[in-house]
């Protein structure tokens, strides 16, 4: 074949690209799995009974962040493969894992600080100990990852319902998620896929609203302070 030399070059390039792609997809899948496990872990910890909720919650955050270090190790390992314009070439492969990571990270962050993790904080978590980023954080992934957070917060609010202070926390989460929805709505037309996730966020929000509503209605019949109600429930639950 007379075009052998031309195509040989492409063969090398395409094989190289495919191999790299495979590695990155594998890495992304690993990141996804690790992140999902951390999310499970966080739910599990916050559902444990504890005396001091605030401290317990901080502890959950720390455990989560610690476990997520494994993700940073993965990103450190693939760093050489996603330098320069290579990052955007493989963005499709990296994106799913990255979003799941941001979801887990922001969940841990919320438990620890009660706030939404900022763009710079996520970029910092995607940097080595000297502050050099493994790769640039795309704002789209940041927003899409965060918008999955609301689903986890819904689960958190509803399944923590009966713990001590769970009712008050559900109210907090409700307001927090409502603010998130309002903020993200502004970005929806700019970020592909965000609109669809906002629909899920709306549903989560409604579920929390309904749970919070139920608390208010139920406690309205008794002229007892929330604290005392919590204690009564706690006693009968643990019996």
């Amino acid at each position: 074949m007379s075009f052998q030399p031309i195509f040989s070059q492409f063969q090398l390039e395409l094989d190289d690209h495919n191999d790299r792609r495979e590695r990155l997809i594998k890495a992304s899948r690993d990141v996804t799995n690790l992140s999902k496990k951390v999310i499970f872990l966080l739910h599990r910890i916050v559902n444990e009974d504890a005396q001091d909720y605030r401290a317990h919650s901080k502890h959950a955050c720390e455990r989560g962040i610690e476990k997520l270090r494994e993700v940073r190790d993965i990103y450190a390992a693939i760093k050489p493969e996603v330098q320069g314009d290579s990052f955007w070439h493989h963005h499709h492969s990296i994106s799913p894992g990255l979003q799941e990571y941001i979801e887990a990270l922001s969940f841990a962050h919320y438990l620890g600080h009660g706030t939404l993790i900022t763009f710079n904080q996520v970029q910092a978590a995607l940097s080595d100990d000297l502050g050099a980023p493994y790769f640039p954080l795309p704002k789209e992934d940041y927003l899409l990852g965060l918008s999955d957070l609301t689903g986890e917060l819904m689960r958190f609010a509803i399944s923590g319902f009966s713990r001590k202070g769970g009712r008050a926390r559900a109210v907090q989460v409700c307001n927090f998620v409502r603010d998130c929805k309002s903020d993200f709505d502004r970005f929806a037309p700019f970020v592909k896929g965000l609109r669809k996730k906002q629909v899920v966020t709306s549903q989560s929000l409604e579920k929390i609203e309904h749970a919070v509503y139920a608390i208010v209605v139920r406690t309205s019949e008794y002229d007892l302070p929330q604290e005392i109600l919590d204690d009564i429930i706690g006693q009968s639950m643990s019996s």
Partner: protein
Amino acid sequence: MDAMDVDYLNELLEQDVEIREKIKQQVSDLDKKVRVMVGILIKIHSTPTDTLPPLLDSVRPILRSCHDTSAALASLVPPNQFWRWKEMWSNSLRTAVYSAALVEYLSSGSLITLSQASEVLGIKEEWADRFSIAVEDYLHGLISLVNELSRLAVNAVTLGDYEAPLRISVFVKDIFAGFSMLNLKNDTLRRRFDSLKYDLKKIEEVVYDVSLRKLTDSTKSAVRK
């Protein structure tokens, strides 16, 4: 190749491209305004009834600013081609109608009419063949209003206002009865109307919860008597 008269055909086809581009821009503008209003109106769910007025006041100037967009669209659409282009702005216009209707209800407790909505958005009657609110777009706006009010009934209770659900219940039942009498075809509007049943049910359940516990003044006083 004369017969196909490519230039003539192309001219016809290209005019459309240009108009489409310009309408798109205006709709994108309208969209931005609408999104800001929706963003503000979300806050009614966490705003106590007595501090609503300033919130509504902040929406009004934006509603007024839609007049410009309306005028621009009316001047872009060629005579007689309202029906050709309306799909392009339907969604945004429906949300604008919804915003106007929500502001109206929260201010005065009454339902905005089609002509009031046109007025609020600065849409003149003489543009009818180029830019107006189609009946179905108005009705879509109302359905969105009901969707929102059903959530508001829930959140009002959370904020300690036990009277709002009752008011909403009466208002929504009236709208629902109105819709029941309309001869809707089997399209999106019909499907969305069918789903109103769930909103109504939800509101009724809130009223139920409140009455069961005798939390409202009316029920309380009823009990007292």
